[in-house]
């Protein structure tokens, strides 16, 4: 069975390879937008030095990291499942002897790995090179970062499945889903750093799964003390389990009551 998921991820990866020109255009866009955001945040930093614990270098790392994750985290929303529910295409997926959540996750992994390797990594390196920022990461911290990144993408995936699953209950789920996506982008610290939030919101956000999708790997990248890393990772694992259970429950209930559209 593992081989089927592996094959699914590989096929999804191959599918991304077709759009190489789009990939290059994507890097260019993310880069330009990244400059714009970087200078904006640097201006904020100049106006109030030390805001949110950030300095010049960490602002650049923050901006580069968020731009690099635009594609893997599907920041502009992901509606694939929602679309198949609405169009009725979901019927072909139901007719396959494979776990529904697992199938989508394998596809998401293939997509994310490609987007990280072909878009995220080059973008991050370019960004650091242009601004001449040294990135000091020990081997153990590098490993912790990779684990944290994998967990972040997993949590993000379950969250996206949850807002897509709304389509089982209402035909105009796109609006709800788009709203859920925007809220999560803000709360995970993708639009402005969590450190810029007012204190009460910073505390409140720590009680949600959203930092586990972006803010935690970012913190590890910026070199938090080694003792904190385990705590951060276990928080991610906690939210991963909660969201997997939630997403699976929703899919289970949703598929029980689904009315396949059309035909």
């Amino acid at each position, binding site marked *: *069975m593992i*081989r*089927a998921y*592996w*094959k*699914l991820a590989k*096929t999804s990866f*191959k*599918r991304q390879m*077709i759009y190489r020109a789009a990939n290059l255009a994507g890097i260019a866009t993310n880069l330009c937008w990244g400059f714009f955001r970087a200078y904006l945040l640097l201006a904020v930093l100049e106006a109030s030095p030390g805001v949110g614990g950030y300095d010049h270098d960490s602002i650049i790392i923050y901006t580069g990291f968020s731009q690099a994750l635009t594609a893997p985290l599907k920041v502009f929303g992901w509606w694939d499942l929602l679309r198949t529910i609405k169009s*009725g*295409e979901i*019927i*072909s997926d*139901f*007719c*396959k*002897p*494979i776990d529904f959540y697992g199938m989508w996750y394998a596809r998401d992994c293939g997509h994310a790995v490609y987007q990280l390797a072909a878009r995220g990594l080059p973008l991050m390196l370019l960004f650091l090179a242009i601004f001449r920022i040294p990135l000091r990461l020990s081997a153990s911290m590098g490993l912790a970062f990779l684990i944290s990144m994998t967990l972040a993408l997993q949590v993000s995936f379950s969250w996206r499945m949850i807002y897509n699953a709304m389509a089982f*209950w*209402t*035909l*105009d789920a796109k*609006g*709800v889903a788009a709203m859920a996506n925007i809220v999560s982008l803000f709360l995970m610290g993708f639009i402005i750093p969590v450190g810029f939030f007012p204190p009460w919101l910073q505390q409140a956000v720590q009680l949600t799964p959203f930092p586990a999708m972006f803010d935690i790997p970012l913190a590890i990248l910026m070199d938090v003390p080694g003792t904190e890393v385990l705590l951060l990772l276990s928080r991610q694992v906690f939210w991963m389990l909660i969201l997997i259970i939630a997403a699976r429950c929703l899919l289970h209930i949703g598929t*029980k009551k*689904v*009315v*396949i559209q*059309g*035909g």
Partner: protein
Amino acid sequence: MIVAKDLVKEFKIYQHHRGAFGAIRNMFSTKHTIVRAVDQISFQIAAGELVGYLGPNGAGKSTTIKMLTGILVPTSGELTIGGIVPWRERVKHVRRMGVVFGQRTTLWWDLPVIETMELLRHIYKIPERQYRRNMDMFADLLGLSEFLNIPVRSLSLGQRMRADLAAAFLHDPEIVFLDEPTIGLDVLAKERIRQFIATINSEKKTTVILTTHDLGDVAKLCRRVMMIDRGKVLFDGALAELVSRFGGERRLIVDFAEEYDDLSIAGARIVAKEGRKVTYAFHSNGNGVAPLIENLSRNYKWADISLQDPDVETTIRHIYEQWEGDHSSEYC
């Protein structure tokens, strides 16, 4: 293979609100009407049968198919397929089942056909030898090798449909549901697909349930036909019986050897006359054409006789029209 008993499926149709708050209201709305899409249908299908499942749009065909595939849970009634209740053991059920929905595709849109086939090989855990054997067979019967390496988005509709059929039969399913597999295809492509279905059904003894609006498919493939309308099975039996029961009149065309003034014969009426060639219409009512010909031979000299049976298409149009009439009278 399939045993269905008193299957019922009801849908709740919710009232739809529009506007900015409509979406939110829709989520909590409880106003609905109940529609019975499938109304107590019962039937049995044996392994290896090839059954045509017919009915006008909205008759309940797709709803039945969705229950058979295990996607929909019936409101009431019993259904087992090879001893399994489809929606209770979905994964076990779909492993030995194949489906083609003519209006949808299971293939990966932007990748070559072979990628989907390889993927299915892993999903169904098809042994290498079986996979090779089937791919060779499909290359032969469907001409699959011509477009195996072309991305699905660049295929013609006929090629895409052939690829979808191959994908459905790749794992040697025991039972296959084909929902309008020839929709939108040209005559040659249709012919090829019918040939394929007939061959697989006879060689692999695959049970096939075919829904279609193409009566050519039915005439060519199905010995048994089930007709459904408004959720009820109205006919279940041999195609020949359907035609003889509902087909209306048969025609007898007689070329007389001499001129006669009065050509009327008992049990038939004249519908056309052209020189010495006369067309009679008659209901066979179980007696067949023998009494008419005896009658003719006794009274006249004729040169040639030919018999025209109502074709499937006319028959089914006839039935649909009758039903249409019945419905409209209900509302009066």
